[in-house]
């Protein structure tokens, strides 16, 4: 059972696919980050991905780095992550995943992290620097607490590794497109399309594509072949530039046309 997988499947059978929206907790402060997340859901985001600010975020581009660094400087603590999840899930029904680098979880205690996440109503974790090979403790804790676990799949992953990611993941598999990093958009699109079809062959039933998606056109394009589209930097940039009204508007623009 996975609330995240259910929402994605429901959006899929309704004719489109899911919009997954990322924002960091604590940026620009805890209260505003909670309001901004709620605004995403009110404006068409189906699944929330809340980033836990971390000192050494190797998967994040400059926009998100800047935001999470500011959150840390403003005094972000891990417990704020659980507070935010609890506050958001009390107000909206969209499932909330935390996106966290691995060391904060290790230091908090993997079991304690899983318990506190469950108590706050969090659906699970996206772990960008934890591959299933190193995830024994988290696999056990997420099974015990019935939380989702989203592992990443890359165009460079072998078929065996894609199968491993599919087997280990619950909720969805995070397909890393190379969008925004490599050149022409048609190439990029081919890379993501190919990865998603390889994941399906590896048994995936719920696959979301992320990294570099920033426009409504790109979301629609991705949803032609994937079950969900993940948008991060574009939302963070909107929040940075224009606060909650801007991030709400950005979410509405991304989800326009997805709901018929």
């Amino acid at each position, binding site marked *: 059972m996975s609330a995240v997988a259910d929402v994605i499947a429901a959006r899929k059978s309704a004719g489109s696919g899911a919009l997954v929206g990322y924002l960091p907790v604590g940026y620009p402060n805890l209260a505003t980050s909670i309001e901004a997340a709620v605004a995403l859901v009110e404006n068409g985001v189906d699944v929330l991905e809340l980033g836990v600010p971390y000192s*050494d975020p*190797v998967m994040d581009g400059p926009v998100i780095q800047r935001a999470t*660094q500011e959150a840390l400087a403003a005094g972000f603590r891990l417990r704020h992550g659980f507070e935010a999840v609890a506050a958001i899930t009390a107000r909206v029904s969209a499932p909330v995943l935390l996106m966290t680098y691995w060391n904060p979880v290790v230091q*908090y205690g993997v079991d304690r992290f899983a318990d506190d996440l469950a108590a706050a109503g969090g659906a699970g974790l996206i772990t960008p620097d934890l*591959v299933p090979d190193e995830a024994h403790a988290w696999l056990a804790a997420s099974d015990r607490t019935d939380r989702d676990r989203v592992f990443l799949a890359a165009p*460079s992953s072998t078929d065996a590794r894609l199968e491993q990611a599919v087997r280990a993941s619950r909720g969805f598999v995070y397909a890393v497109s190379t969008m925004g990093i490599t050149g022409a958009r048609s190439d990029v699109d081919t890379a993501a399309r190919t990865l998603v079809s390889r994941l399906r062959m590896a048994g995936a039933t719920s696959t979301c594509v992320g990294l570099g998606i920033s426009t409504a056109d790109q979301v629609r394009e991705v949803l032609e072949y994937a079950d969900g589209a993940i948008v991060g930097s574009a939302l963070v940039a909107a929040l940075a530039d224009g606060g909650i009204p801007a991030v709400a508007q950005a979410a509405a623009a991304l989800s326009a046309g997805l709901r018929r």
Partner: protein
Amino acid sequence: MLRDESGPYFGEYGGRFVPESLISALDELDAAYTAAKADPVFQAELTHLHATYTGRPSIITEAPRFAEHAGGARIILKREDLNHTGSHKINNVLGQALVAKRLGKTRLIAETGAGQHGVATATAAALFGMECVVYMGEVDTERQSLNVARMRLLGATVIPVTTGSRTLKDAINDALRDWVANVGSTHYLLGTVAGPHPFPVMVRDFHKIIGEEARQQVLDLTGALPDAVTACVGGGSNAMGIFHAFLDDPTVKLYGYEAAGAGHLTDKHAATITRGRPGVLHGARSYLLQDEDGQTIESHSISAGLDYPGVGPEHAWLHDMGRASYLPITDAEAMDALRLLSLTEGIIPAIESAHALAGTMKLGRELGSTATILVNLSGRGDKDMETAGKYFDILDTAALEREVESPVDPSSLGVKE
């Protein structure tokens, strides 16, 4: 045999905590390195380069006048400072560049703290005709500006890193991001025994020549193994390089000296094993400086090359089993040792290496005059002249400014044009 340990784990340390996008590159690297290690052609090529380019074997030098300040113990320096480019770093760089060539990579990227690893990487890129990009924290580009100029002269692009603490750890983050994006064409030439497998093992293997040479050289000189082997520890590559050959010699004590900055009990230090605890950073599980939430704490040291809040996993393993001891050395202790070696032996060490010398002075007094201590002199101090000049207040800044305004007439120095 401790020496046979070859990862991915050293006890509970090491592993691969990286984005999935990098796993295939690490697998490819691991396979290429494993093949190269067993290939006599590769080994011959590396040996030839070391003989004709690096300047290996590096000599050992006895330091009797310095030893008077170290309890009269016999002090023997392994002279990695005499290698081409001025430090031990070239050993690893040439090895990895050859592996990168076998992999068909055309672009080398690297992180650097003191600039020594960046200079060595830029050197290898020039030698092999590869493109080179070096990430360096902005704090370090300022305090090691001479090395920035060296890298540029060698054709490398130096990118000052402005995120986080703007030092070595942030340079590694940016290098990892670059690698994720450009993994097809690019080899990330990591400069120490840290990072995800196979880096800790591969980098150690390329440096273990230091200890292998030194072990025989000390035997030839003294007829016995040393009582102790010492080295400074940043990420830990020069220390692993000299320790490795001695790991299974139980009579030889191993000491790694960490940078204690203003003091390991203050909040301005880089004494990772002394003050840190196990966690995950830069792709491996090891000791690191971190707060309660697992956020990395910024390190501090006068030495850019030791200013790193992590340490290689093999050191964490050796520490936990008690095979090696890791002790803190302050900025002031290191700078005193730097001056002392300069005055007593006519050798100006890198500030990094001066930490090993300062530790050795204490150790010599402990072990007494019958002891023999082998010290890894990992680099030379040329790059540190600005820092040392300011620290000892021996830079005649007024004269320097006058020179800039009116350059010295070469004829007044007796130089013919």
